[in-house]
């Protein structure tokens, strides 16, 4: 569902400044999608209710409990690769879906759901901030 307004979750102004999100425009569609991605990533039980059984009371309750924004960005530029365990190529979107269903003890959103899309958009914004290119590795080499 498209919302022209995204709620301001705690820490967003700091995140926005730290990751240079405004370089995509102060109030663009993209920026708003990044913000929704931020909300989903750090406050999953509030913003991704439909796709998780976790609540804020759980010790591990959001994507950010296990991942950093940086790791998410590296995940994006290293996605769409062959996974020997699954014996097929796995997209970033599928990784996100799997984490909703698995570690988040919830349900799988569709490929087009903002709960998936905006995580990708968030990852893209962070990857832009880190100046990553395709296949960049965490050790920087």
């Amino acid at each position: 569902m498209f919302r022209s307004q995204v709620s301001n979750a705690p820490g967003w102004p700091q995140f926005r400044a730290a990751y240079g999100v405004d370089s995509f425009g102060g109030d663009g569609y993209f920026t708003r999608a990044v913000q929704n991605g931020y909300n989903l990533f750090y406050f999953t039980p509030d913003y991704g209710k439909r796709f998780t059984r976790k609540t804020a009371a759980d010790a591990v309750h959001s994507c950010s409990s296990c991942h950093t924004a940086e790791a998410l960005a590296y995940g994006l530029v290293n996605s769409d690769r062959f996974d020997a365990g699954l014996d097929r190529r796995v997209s970033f979107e599928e990784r996100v879906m799997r984490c909703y269903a698995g570690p988040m003890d919830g349900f799988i959103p569709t490929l087009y759901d903002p709960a998936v899309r905006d995580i990708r958009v968030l990852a893209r914004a962070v990857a832009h901030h880190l100046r990553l290119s395709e296949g960049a590795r965490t050790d920087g080499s």
Partner: protein
Amino acid sequence: MEAKSVSAVPAKLMKIALIVGALCGLYLMALSSHAERDQLRKASVDLTPNCKAKLEGYGLVAAEHYRSPYVQAVNGVDSTVRGYSEQDVRSIQRGCNIVDDLQGQLAKRGARERWNADRFVRGTYTTCIHCHQSGGDKHDTAGKPVSGSNNLGASWVMADMYDRFSGLIMSHELRQMQCYINASNGFKPNSADDLIRDVTAYSRFLSAALDQKMGQRYAEQGLDEIPFSATRRRGDDYVRGAHVYREKCANCHGPQALGMVVQGKVLYPALAGPQSFTMDSRMYFGTLNSLMPGFICRNMPLGAEGSLDNQDCRDIAYYLGTLPRPAGDRQGPLVAAWQQVMMGVMPPLTRYAESLGRNHTEHPGD
């Protein structure tokens, strides 16, 4: 009473058996097509000559690390990134083949080697490189990507941005779908179809080979636009456009822009008529009147690129916009039917009218 219910039971059973049988048949068919896909994914890829040259030039092999020889040579930087597995390499190779030869005209087993891409396009000869030249990665003589050349690597790093035409944030996959629907007058493949994913893999590889950074806007992305304001504001004129077209373009694209196909191979793509892009495509002057002029001025006439001025390009684009072509989804069934009729009627009529014209003596200054 008794006899009736006895015969009704077997009839009912027969019906159920029939339905179950049909479902089993469908299931078996699905299994076999899955098996075929799996086999194709695992098969080694016969590259088209263009793709062979491109991917070898970029040093694509399965290895733990990938280092782009291009970036090393042109930018003098050593960019080592994560390498590709055998499976990933094949996906990239298939993606390049799809862009270069969408309908498998160069493939031994035809469209099957391209995930049956011909299912998704109506024209028999459309292929992505007609508009995304050099496999979506066109370079100038100095080896630099050409500005406004619809580069697919630059498109990948800028995917997910807001698209002002659809009003959506569009992923790379959705942008490809648009090109199936509008640029190729076709249908939407599924986002997770191998057809789409292999091209994404190829685009992503191009961005690695060119060392393009995520979220960065590069001049080679998209097509350059020539808006009205970039002319001397004399006004666009399709009659003049028709004249320039006849002089500069008709020898390749044909007198009525229907393209040229020789022995099943497209030499020159159609710019109008049933084999061409639809009225919803951004290439269509009526939808976006600045993009097609940009394409023409930068890329055409092939061999003498850059020889036309901005007004020429707008005039030609306007003229091409007046020729009959397939309607898009947004025009509705009436316009679609009308366009269909015009595509049938106009070419012979125009030919006839022009044959009359030839009998007149040319006036000086015509």
